[in-house]
């Protein structure tokens, strides 16, 4: 695996190609928009998506945790797809989450999908947390704030060549603030060119697209 280190408001951030960000100096691992139980949420509307999204998301989380051995894990909000998602999680899924939270301190930031995460959850629940030079919250605030790290927007970018285009999830950063890609298995995306993302940055920025084993830094003017 090849990692990419970038600087966000003076803090060194490692971008993992799985879609998580790691702050080596703070031993902190960050995930955004896990959307546990999105599949079963659709099943209530009788659309039977494969019921394996939660376990898939958790297994990928566990691999990242095993790799970086963080002291702290921050989930940037919308960790649970809906109010009852915690109740629908099976014992295997909850067991995986338990194991992870024994090795690291979890901070669950509340999102618009999960303003009140389930009470069995290990760790702290908060709206916002400061670590080093960075401030972590679910939804970016429209007013410019240096050091803000947020999720919510599920950024994606596309590049094309040889008559074929590739669309991937991506980190977005201009070196002062950063948006994380969504981590949940069934989470779709919003193009970085859309106003909701593009207007967050005053100047040029990069889309850090997720490849199979590495992250690719794509300048904004190329990423669609």
């Amino acid at each position: 695996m090849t990692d990419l280190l970038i600087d966000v408001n003076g803090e060194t951030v490692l971008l993992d190609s799985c879609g998580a960000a790691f702050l080596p100096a703070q031993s902190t691992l960050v995930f955004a928009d896990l959307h546990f139980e999105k599949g079963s949420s659709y099943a209530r509307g009788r659309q039977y998506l494969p019921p394996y999204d939660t376990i898939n998301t958790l297994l990928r989380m566990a691999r990242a945790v095993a790799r970086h051995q963080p002291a702290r894990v921050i989930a940037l909000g919308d960790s649970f797809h809906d109010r009852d998602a915690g109740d629908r999680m099976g014992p295997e899924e909850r067991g995986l989450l338990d194991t992870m939270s024994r090795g690291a301190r979890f901070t669950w930031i509340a999102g618009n999908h999960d303003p009140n995460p389930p009470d069995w959850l290990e760790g702290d629940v908060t709206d916002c947390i400061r670590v080093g030079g960075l401030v972590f919250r679910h939804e970016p605030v429209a007013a410019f704030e240096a050091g803000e790290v947020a999720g919510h927007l599920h950024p994606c970018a596309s590049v094309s060549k040889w008559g074929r285009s590739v669309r991937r999830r991506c980190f977005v950063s201009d070196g002062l603030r950063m948006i994380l890609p969504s981590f949940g298995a069934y989470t779709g995306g919003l193009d970085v060119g859309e106003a909701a993302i593009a207007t967050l940055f005053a100047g040029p920025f990069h889309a850090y697209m997720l490849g199979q084993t590495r992250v690719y830094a794509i300048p904004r003017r190329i990423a669609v």
Partner: protein
Amino acid sequence: MLLLQFHDWFAARGWTARAHQLALVDHAERGESVLLVAPTGGGKTLAGFLPSLIDLAGKPKRARKRGLHTLYISPLKALAVDVARNLDAPVAEMALPVTVETRTGDTSAARRQRQRHSPPDILLTTPEQLSLLTAHPRAPQMFENLRTVVLDELHALYNSKRGDLLALGLARLSTLAPDHRRVGLSATVKDPAPLQRFLVPQPAQGEALSALVIAAGGAKPSIEISTSDSYVPWAGHLARHAMLDVMLAIQSAKTALVFVNTRSQAERTFQELWAINDNNLPIALHHGSLALEQRRKVEAAMAKGSLRAVVCTSTLDLGIDWGAVDKVICIGAPKGAARLVQRIGRANHRLDEPSTALLVPANRFEVLECNAARDAVLAGELDGERLKAGGLDVLAQHILGTACAAPFDPAALFAEVRAASPYAHLTREDFNAVVDFVATGGYALKAYDRYARLRKTEDGKLRLAHPRLAQEYRLNAGVIVEDPMVEVRLQSRGKPAGAGGRKLGELEEYFIEQLSPGDTFVFAGQVVRFEGLRETGAYVTKTNDPDAEIPSYNGGKFPLSTFLAQRVREMVSAPERWHSLPEPVQEWLKIQEWRSVIPKPGQLLVETFPRGNRQYLACYPFEGRLAHQTLGMLLTRRLERLKLHPIGFVANEYALAVWAAKDMGGADMDALFDQDMLGDDLDSWLAESNMYKRTFRNCAIIAGLIQRRFPGKEKTGRQVTFSSDLIYDVLREHEPDHVLLRATYQDAGTGLLDIARLGDMLARVKKRIVTRRLDRVSPLAVPALLEIDRQMVAGAVDEAILRDNEDSLIRDAMRVD
């Protein structure tokens, strides 16, 4: 034996009933289902209806049982409407007590409801409407007295997903109206047996065939091949060198149809013809991306006889008769003998006069293909089709539809479905898996029982869990899944993208995504400049850039048929037959013979040679671009393992060329081309293949895993595409044997990847590979190498695209490895 009334009617128009029309009346009297195979212009449709008209004429309205008497199903709704018009003449002129109506997506809701309660004697409709009708609770009343089903253009339907849907609808009708009989109408086919099976319920053991009537053939067509002895292009598909020939052919005809194979070719040909149209002949353009109103306008002008030519794609392969067409011009490769016959048949709908056609090959290989196709048509030989098994995704849709009509008994439904010929070999396990899928998603490790769509009743039947599901079923019904499309809007120059704009038509989203503002392309007969993509569509302005790109959007790309490929290979392998080819083509093959080798019948030639600083491997299976692309993907994987460092490859209809950093001439070609590549290599490639993901998306939509649209809430194509890829990845990882993945694999065998055909080819050439290590490029390899702009990258293509777009400054400064 004809009723006097009918005899007189024929006589009054100076006609006599044809033998095959009378034969169909005979079979009807015996109550038998029958397939009529007849060339165009043979009075096929009237033959299909004659027995019904006779039966209805003999019984006054009051003496009849109520309900539908005859159901007519055509693949095109325009054809259903046209046939209704044609039936009006005999019905009115003989004053028959017969009502005829059509039912299509355009029929008003009020009329559709009325048709269910008080059906006409004869209803003309499409396979999609049939499934909607049978899925309605009133279906038993509507069909209880059905006597006859007429299936038009059956050859175009029986071996497709629409054919599966139709077969399942017919199986339902067999239960609702056990005594009805069926009449299939088909163009000439190589083997009528699969169509005969399609027409009758299949027994649990063995097989049943309908009766067969073959009409006398018409006059042999006259087929010319446009060739210039001085110049034949090496590659390309546009035939620009022959446009003057095409224009002369148009000038000498009353009305001509100019067929091309893709929409982009249609656009370019239209441009080229108008550039030399000094007499301002009315020449129009018709293809599937144009706005519907524009297509209707062209069709209406054609029907009035006010056009001299239409440049068109397969959209006009089937369809209503235009009496005035007296010449068919086919530009590019014919792809198959049956397709050529079908297209030639569009000229001159009169049986006793020969149709005239002009074939215009655009390059050297196409010269061979045109000659092979003409020889086959004149010899009366046609391509066979690989029979596909009934799709499990279509079955899922049908099962939900059946539940919408009434609770069903699974065992009885299984027996009913097995009577449909595409599903004659369906296993009970597969059937159960599909029922589970419909009921709760059919997942092995976790079930959605709480939210089931189907629930058990006390008597062991399955019923719909909620009436809303029937509404959703109707919105998602049908098996035609379009690529996500974007509207193209023409706006005036100087306005910001997104402001106003008239709709020109639609283009595949993936094509639009590759454009940058300022790019120019040819669309709807004009050169346009791309301004930007907005939520409401792609915005373009008029421009006159002479170097405008031809959009390489898909549509109408058929692979070369197996049968025709065989004939082309034979022609290449037989130097004694080359004399009939144009001079430059003969010379090309002779130099190939001298510099390399001409493969003998049955052999596969593999050449290796250096060029520039690259090493090449070229082979010539003639199996079509799709199969060659799949072969290219698999070969480069193996070459990678052999440490020969493949870089890229290019595939066309006839050949595949791979280039690498190292000389591939030393590789063991028998091992390289061994059939075992269809095992693990195929499997690992499928995991990331876009084509395969598209196949999955189609299956998921047809099976109802992903909904096309929710009542009252439209989902855009983009959202559907993206989420289906996510679902695919998760399902493949956690339940690789799920029924939907099996349905996808089944499709990939014959669909976008042509795996079955590749498998046949690898088996055919086993131990018959002839290799040549050359010091430079061979003549046969040139056409493929000229198409290098269509190259594919070896290995993980998507990663290569990402790498190529990367900001190298950041990468080099910040990478930690």
